[in-house]
């Protein structure tokens, strides 16, 4: 019984770490503009819209986070093998992984933006200076929490995978959850803030992203501020729920019966099916069918 209570505590802690990781991951990727909405950031200058948005989408979020978290976990694992205190080892491993992320962000921004030179898009050095460090800080939070969570899964819950492999697995899952949940909010709600609320962006408006803020030109820090309100926390809840239910069903129900975790997993899936169906019907009833307003046309 005591073991189960301990396991539940670890599960809750891992879920909390995952929630922070998901929120930091989505905010980082939106400040750096790494998700699918970056297609519009890349397209805008080609359509004549010069902007000051960061641009580092040379890899998708899942493989990028797979790399950074596996790197942080691998280094932490090596430091722990050198008898360094686990918390210090995880901090050091994550910090070193963040430097790789910083190099990636710098070269990706310079490369991607320079490729737009023939469309007149300048490389803004002040953008590089002010935003790279902000994405690095957010990436550190995401990597540190994910590596710490993986360490808990191994040392406290006894998962058989070594730390670097677990880092790769959960890094990819973190990127998948963060990009799936956070991308539409950054893409539709922020980049196309001028378009009508409650409708998809017409394909004819592609590339016409919002480039001006309350004062002066909009930059990616403004986008991070916006994402942190809903897209980030929602991604955090998504990843936190995934990690929590994945661990909880095993930790609590494996003692009762070896099939327990599987049955509980199926029940949880059915529960989410009901929630999903409920909100889908709720939206159809409350929002109603699409009706075009005359000023809704593109640009």
């Amino acid at each position, binding site marked *: 019984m005591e073991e189960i209570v301990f396991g539940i505590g670890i599960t809750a802690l891992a879920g909390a770490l995952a929630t922070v990781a998901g929120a930091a991951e989505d905010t980082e990727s939106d400040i750096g503009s790494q998700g699918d909405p970056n297609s519009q950031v890349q397209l805008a200058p080609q359509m004549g819209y010069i902007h000051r948005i960061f641009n580092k989408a040379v890899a998708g979020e899942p493989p990028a986070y797979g790399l950074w978290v596996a790197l942080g976990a691998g280094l932490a694992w090596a430091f722990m093998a050198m008898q360094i205190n686990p918390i210090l080892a995880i901090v050091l491993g994550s910090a070193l992984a963040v430097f790789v992320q910083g190099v990636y962000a710098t070269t990706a921004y310079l490369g991607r933006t320079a490729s737009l030179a023939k469309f007149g898009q300048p490389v803004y050095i002040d953008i590089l200076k002010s935003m790279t460090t902000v994405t690095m800080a957010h990436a550190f939070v995401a990597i540190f929490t994910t590596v710490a969570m993986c360490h808990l899964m191994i040392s406290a819950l006894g998962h058989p995978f070594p730390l670097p492999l677990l880092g790769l697995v959960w890094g990819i899952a973190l990127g998948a959850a963060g990009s799936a949940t956070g991308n539409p909010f950054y893409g539709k709600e922020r980049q196309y803030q001028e378009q009508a609320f409650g409708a998809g962006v017409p394909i004819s408006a592609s590339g016409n992203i919002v480039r001006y803020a309350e004062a002066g030109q909009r930059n990616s820090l403004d986008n991070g501020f916006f994402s942190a309100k809903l897209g980030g926390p929602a991604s955090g809840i998504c990843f936190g729920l995934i990690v929590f239910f994945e661990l909880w069903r095993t930790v609590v129900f494996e003692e009762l019966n070896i099939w327990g975790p599987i049955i509980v*997993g199926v029940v949880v899936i059915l529960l989410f099916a009901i929630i999903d169906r409920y909100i889908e019907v709720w939206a159809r009833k409350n929002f109603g069918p699409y009706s075009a307003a005359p000023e809704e046309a593109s640009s």
Partner: protein
Amino acid sequence: MSALGGPKQTGGVQSPTAMGIVLSIVLIIVALGLAYFLVQMAGVIALVGIIIGGVLVAFGVHFVPVGGAPAAMGQSPGIATGVAMLAAGAGLAGLFGGAWAAPFGLAVALAGGAVGGGLLMAITCTMVNVIYIFGMGIPAASGKVDKDPITGDTFPEYKSQGTEGHGLPFISWVGGVVGGALGGLGGTLIYLELLDIYQAQLPVLLNATVEQIAPVAISLAGIFAVGMFLINAVLAAYNITGTIEGPHDPKFKRFPRAIIAAAVASAVAGFFAIALLELVGVF
């Protein structure tokens, strides 16, 4: 890639050519023969398991509703990320669960892997709809069918002007969960087959007990399972080209070609994975 996520998607189904099928069968037989030659019957059984696992992964990827870049602007239905990436996220979460349950036997581990992958997709798909509905005020609408095959909801009147649909209709949600479950099942099967092989070979090679080599065997099997998973997921993504809404999408019918390709890729890559230690021994 264009702003709309790749070339115009025709949804056309191209059947595999006779030449392709013959070549595939030959390659699979050669891989099985080599596996028998190097690792005997255990190698053949493991390779068959790996081929089945790879095929399940590639088939499962076709179920996952992926909208790519257009979905991030509410221009097409699905989840706003890449096909291979999302499938990998789900499949590897399944592998995490499956590997954890490995000591309880094949059936429990496989079911654990499938449920793990399905659970990740269930939560992710639900959160996608939460963001679309409560963050953006957009109800789900499919662009490929007029009516949801499961719930019977109609879509054309809910679709925004100038888009191909948006959000995740219930059929896409179900497709996502089925795809995640198949991915988790396939990934776990590959892992377990490789683990069996390494646990049998490593003690002899290193002159150690099974307990002593367990970390090495688990790491090797795990990393090869991740690699084989990605091979099959990417192959399936190439077959889909861009975006897919789920099992109701006309592109779903393209899956036979991916299954053949996945079987061959899994046979060849799987042979190197199971014969790794034998090959290391040769040199």
